[in-house]
C-alpha cells in the first residue's frame, strides 16, 4: 500500500516524543499494554513509522519485530502518513448492495489514487472500510469524522470541493 509521496522523512517533535514517553510510562505495567500504547502513539504522530516503533521498543523492552508484527497485522495501524483529509468509503455489505462500489470508483477517478494511497499534495487519502454501522444511510463515506450518507456518484465532486 504505497503512498504516492514516495518516502516521507520522519519529522517527530520533542513534544511528541515526550507525550509518547508519558503514555508508555503510564501503561507499561498493565497486562497486554502494547496495543493501547501503539494506539495512543498513532494518535500522537498520526501514523506509526519505524522510528516510533523503535522508540516503543526501547522504552518497553518489547522486541521491535513483535511491534512490527502487530502494526502490520491490524488495518488500523498506518505505517505511512495519511492525507490531511482521510476519506474512507464503506464497502460493507449493506453499502455495497446500495452501490458504494460506484462511489469508490468515482473517488479513485477524481483523486487519481487508489485504496491505501494519498494524493501527492498530501491533502486526501483514500481507504475502503468495512461497515461504520450507519447502514440505515447506505451508501456511506467518511471524511475525517464527518459522515456523508445516501450518496450518489454525482454528489462526490461537490463534497470534495468543500475540502479543496
Amino acid at each position: 500500500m504505497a503512498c504516492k509521496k514516495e518516502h516521507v522523512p520522519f519529522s517527530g517533535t520533542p513534544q511528541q516524543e515526550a507525550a509518547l514517553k508519558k503514555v508508555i510510562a503510564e501503561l507499561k505495567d498493565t497486562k497486554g499494554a502494547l496495543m493501547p500504547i501503539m494506539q495512543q502513539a498513532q494518535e500522537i504522530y498520526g501514523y506509526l513509522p519505524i522510528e516510533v516503533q523503535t522508540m516503543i521498543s526501547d522504552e518497553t523492552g518489547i522486541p521491535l519485530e513483535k511491534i512490527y508484527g502487530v502494526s502490520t497485522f491490524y488495518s488500523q495501524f498506518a505505517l505511512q502518513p495519511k492525507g490531511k483529509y482521510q476519506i474512507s468509503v464503506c464497502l460493507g455489505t449493506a453499502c455495497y448492495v446500495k452501490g458504494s462500489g460506484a462511489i469508490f470508483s468515482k473517488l479513485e477517478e477524481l483523486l487519481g489514487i487508489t485504496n491505501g494511497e494519498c494524493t501527492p499534495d498530501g491533502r486526501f487519502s483514500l481507504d475502503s472500510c468495512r461497515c461504520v454501522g450507519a447502514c440505515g444511510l447506505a451508501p456511506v463515506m467518511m471524511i475525517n469524522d464527518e459522515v456523508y450518507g445516501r450518496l450518489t456518484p454525482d454528489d462526490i465532486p461537490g463534497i470534495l470541493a468543500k475540502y479543496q
Partner: protein
Amino acid sequence: MYRSHVLVCGGTGCTSSGSQQIMETLKAEIEKQGLTEEVSVVQTGCHGLCALGPIMIIYPDATFYSMVKVEDIPEIVAEHLLKGRVVTRLLYNETVTPAGNVKALIDTDFYKKQHRIALRNCGIINPEVIEEYIGTGGYEALGKVLTEMTPDDVIQCLLDSGLRGRGGGGFPTGLKWKLAKQNDADQKYVCCNADEGDPGAFMDRSVLEGDPHAVLEAMAIAGYAIGASQGYIYVRAEYPIAVQRLKIAIEQAREMELLGNNIFGSDFSFDIDLRLGAGAFVCGEETALMTSIEGNRGEPRPRPPFPAQKGLFGKPTILNNVETYANIPQIILHGPEWFASMGTEKSKGTKVFALGGKIHNTGLVEIPMGTTLREVIEEIGGGIPGGKKFKAAQTGGPSGGCIPAEHFDIPIDYDNLIAIGSMMGSGGLIVMDEDDCMVDIAKFFLEFTVEESCGKCTPCRVGTKRMLEILTKITKGQATMEDLDKLEELCYYIKENSLCGLGQTAPNPVLSTLRYFRDEYEAHIKEKRCPAGVCKALLSYRIDPDKCRGCTLCARNCPNNAISGTVRNPHVIDQDKCIKCGACMEKCKFGAIYKK
C-alpha cells in the same frame, strides 16, 4: 419537574444525519423561548428506525418526529412545546391514520411485532446518566444475585432460560459459564466481545451506545457466577461513540460502587477495563480476541484447550457478546421461565436483526425467535422499494449464506437457518433484489475473507484466495464448468480443514448461492451472461434505434468517445471502445439505452 421531555437520538445513524446540531439548536431555541425550566432535552441511544433519522420523540404524548432538520426546530419549539400543537408534517407517516389521527408508535408495522429485551432501554434512557438506568430497574439483578443467589443458582437460571450466544455460534451461555466455574484458578476473566465485525450488523453498537450499563451489570453477574474479579470489553475502535459511552458508564459505576471492591457490601469484587480493537475481523473469533487483548497479532489458537480451561493470559475465561449480556439482567429479574416462554423449541428469547440493503425500513429490529422471514421483510421492513422483486436475504455476514424466496416462511432460529445453508451470525440481514448478482455477492464476501484471513493456517490463507480467483474468472466470463466443480470441492476442503471459525465458514456464501442460484453461475459460464446485469465484463450497452432521437447527449457525455452519430439520427455505441461506465444510460432522457 419538567412538563415535557424531548428525546433526540444520539446513535451513530442519527448522529451521521446531523442529530448533534439538532440538539444544540433545540437547546438554544428552548432557552430563547424561555422554556428551559419546563422542557428537558435528553440524548438517547438508537430507536432502530435509522432510515428516518434524525429522530425526535416528545413526551409525555410520545409524538414521533422523523427526518427532522435544523430549520424545523423553531417551529417545533413554538408550535409543539409552547402551544401544544403537533407539527403534523414532521410526523412519522406510519403514525398517522388515514383519518388523520395520530396512533402510538408501538402500533406501527415497524414496531408492533417487535419485542424488546436487549434493546429495551435503547432510545428511552440517557445512556450517559447512570441514574436513568437504575430508574428502569438497572443493577437490581446484580443486587439480587449477590444477596439472594449462589453462583450455581445463577448458572442454573441461565441454563433453564435456554439463552444461547448471540454472537453467531449459538452455544448455550449457561453451559459456557458452568464449564468456566468448574475450573479452579487463582484468577479468572470475563470478556465481552464487542468487536462487531460482520459488515451490516450494528446491534451491539446500538446496545453499547444506548444502554452500556446493561452490559456492565451482566459482566459483573458473570464474574460472580464463575468466580472472576476482572472483566475486559474488547470494542472496535471504529465505534467512537460506543467507546466514549462505555468509558463514562464504567466511571459512573465505579463511583456508585457498582464496580470495584465489595459490591453491595458483599465480599464480591469486580472491575472492568476497555481494550480497543484495531480493525481485524478475525479478532471476533474468541481465541483470536484473547490473543489480541494480550497485545499480540490477533491470530486464533487451536482448541482444546478451550477458553473455559485456558483462556486469557492462560486463565479460565468466558467470552460472550454484547447482545447476549444485554439479555442477562432481564432473565435474572423475570426468571428463566419468562425467557423460555418466548421463541422456538431450541432457540429461546428474542434476536436483534440489522435490516439493510434493498428494504424500506432499514434499521434495528428485535423479534421473538421463530418469526418468519416474510414477517420481517414484508411487515416490519415494509417490503422492497421501487416495486422490485425479492431475490435473497443474506444473514450471518461473511460466514453466512443467502436465503431465497422459497424459504420465506421458515421460522427464524439457529437450527433452521443452518439447515437451509445459512446461519444466524450476529444478526445482519441484508435484503437483495433482482438487480443483485449472486455470483458477484459471493465474490464480494470472498474478497472480504481473503483480506481478513490472518494467514496462520493454509486452507484459509491459500484456499480462499484460490476460490476468489475462480469466482473472478466466472464474473469475467472466462470460467469453465470444471472450474465450478473445483470451486465446490475447495469449499468443502476449506470448511473441514481450517483452524478457526473464520475459515470454516468462509465458503458458506459460495455454497449457499451455489445451492439456490446455480443457474446464475451457469449463465455466467455457459452463456457468458450476467442475468442481473451487474458483472461489467459480461455487459454491453446498446442503443435502441427506435427510441433514440439523436439528441447527442450520450455522445457528449461518453468519457471514451465510443458513441457516434449525427444530430436527429439514431446513435451507435462502438463496443470495442465502450468502457461500460454507464454514463450514457444515466444521461439518456428517452430510455433508449439498455444493458444486455
